[in-house]
């Protein structure tokens, strides 16, 4: 297991991020993105620091964090695999693609493999609709998935 940083360390790293982005108009989302980039998730210990710095309530920060699908309350696996489940991919068999990924990884959507290598998530459209079915491994896009490509992706993510 990876060690979680101590709360004081989270607070100081959060404060540094805020300091850098506070001058933006509407800085909360850019700050949260940066925090997630830094810690792999948005730690609870970051919230009071943000609230204080932006002069909003902690409840407001919590409300924003929980509204958006992208922000995680816990760290993800080393790789994040997003499998498109929207209509264009459905028309090309994204159900079967998802089933194959789940079977090979031994997990369902929103779960992480036991070895911490992969988190599997559904995504509703990657804009690769003329190359369906599609997926994204970390930032890398993959289209026209077939069994061979699926196995390759799983092997890459597991390594």
């Amino acid at each position: 297991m990876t060690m979680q940083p101590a709360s004081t360390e989270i607070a100081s790293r959060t404060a540094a991020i805020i300091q850098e982005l506070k001058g933006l108009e509407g800085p909360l989302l850019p700050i949260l993105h940066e925090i997630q980039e830094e810690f792999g998730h948005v730690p609870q210990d970051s919230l009071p620091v943000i609230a204080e710095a932006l002069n909003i309530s902690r409840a407001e920060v919590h409300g924003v964090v929980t509204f958006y699908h992208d922000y995680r309350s816990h760290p993800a696996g080393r790789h994040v695999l997003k499998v498109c489940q929207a209509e264009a991919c459905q028309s090309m068999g994204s159900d079967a693609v998802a089933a194959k990924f789940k079977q090979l990884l031994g997990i369902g959507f929103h779960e992480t493999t036991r070895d911490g290598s992969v988190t599997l998530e559904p995504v509703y459209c990657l804009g690769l609709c003329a190359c369906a079915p599609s997926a994204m491994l970390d930032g890398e896009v993959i289209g026209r998935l077939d069994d061979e490509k699926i196995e390759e992706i799983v092997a890459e993510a597991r390594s």
Partner: protein
Amino acid sequence: MIPRIYISGDSGALALGAEKVAKAIAKELAERGVEAKIVRNGSRGAYFLEPMVEVATEKGRVAYGPVKPSDVKSLFDSGFLTGGHHKRWLGAPDKIPFIARQTRLTFARCGINDPLSLDAYKSLGGLKGLQNAVAMAPADIVKQVTESGLRGRGGAGFPTGIKWKTVLDTTSDRKYIVCNADEGDSATFADRMIMEGDPFVLIEGMAIAGVATGATKGFVYIRSEYPHAVAMMNKAVAVARKAGVLGVNVLGSPNAFDMEIRVGAGAYVCGEETSLLNSLEGKRGVVRAKPPLPAIQGLFGKPTVINNVISLASVPIIMDKGATFYKDFGMGRSRGTIPIQIAGNVKNGGLFETAFGLTLGDIVDDIGGGTSTGRPVKAVQVGGPLGAYFPRALFDTPFDYEAFAAKDGLIGHAGITVFDDTADMLKQARFAMEFCAIESCGKCTPCRIGSTRGVETIDKIAAGIEPDKQIALVTDLCNTMKFGSLCALGGFTPYPVMSALNHFREDFKPAPVAEAAE
């Protein structure tokens, strides 16, 4: 002259292996000791031919595609650097039928050159629209955009010029231009393609909007699912700023305009304009009640133009060639061109920009070439997850805002998903409700609760529990959602549900129960 090889860096091409092809070509060049420059261009949108490789020869460009890394050696052996023949040879890219049949106004430059070369942009007519605009009175710019007949390409089809006029006429110390690049609808990728393939056209369009309305600051709100578009726009803004396209003196004029790229956080509803504004302000992406209109009280309460990427990217050509030039394309009240995105189970998938007026059948059968599985087309969904499913019987509908509305559908952001005869329309109707439940912002009851009840009711139909009663319930629920929801998410979810129910009723019959064994 050093030969130039063009390999697309567009996400769609990358998803099909363009990076591996580029590496293989670079390796082969090194091994053979051949000098050539590899340029990463955008995509021309013919995704069935991607990864497409183009070579600039003395007789013009020659394209090859779809190229696999394993083709690279034989391409060199066939002398592709001088346009030699090969099994992947396609000839001049602009003569490829899928591309030759288009009318490219907004996408005129997309996929041709390095997206970050401002010189290449200018060499193909870029910045002429903005140059004209800075020499005009704001009201005249707005007039020209209004007269072009341009309507919001995000889906709602509201006249762009009228929106701009409201912002121009509203007095304020600060005004904003917000570009909605939260392209969440399945089957749509036009925004992504233009941001990755010709980002300056969007920057130019936003700068024109700023000059026209007196706004000095712009935001592009891009969904987080588009990391490549985000990176490209950030780089392009930096280039534009350095070149004086953006800044305190836009193209040397007294007009100030600068912009920032912002990234969404995975909420589909933020494609709705007021929810997008809340998100930009750092709030939950809940929908605002209208009025007040964003044009009067928008971002941070200031007058705001909020337009889709394609609307803004269509402005430069209007300011360059004039309102009449643009207006002469199209039909009825749908003027100009529309980038149709042909997606899903289709043979020739990609982006096809054309004047309004083609029939759905022309698009799907003729241009799209039918399904990629080779099975008959059963249904096409037009306009993303909130668009109606059309059966073959309605394939004579012309691509036009009003014509689609008359058939209880919408063209939306002009994405078309093709389904073959294996599609189960009850499942598609259920998904529409499920998607609405996942993505609802929760502010209004018809959307928040109705979508969940919709899923349950459709499940009962599938299970054969009093199907007629459930169908009546779904119909009533859709009526409530359509007229009682605050925004298009709850309000338009009934389109896919009711069209599936009305046009494909046979899929809503309970599955025949097997006879009990003797």
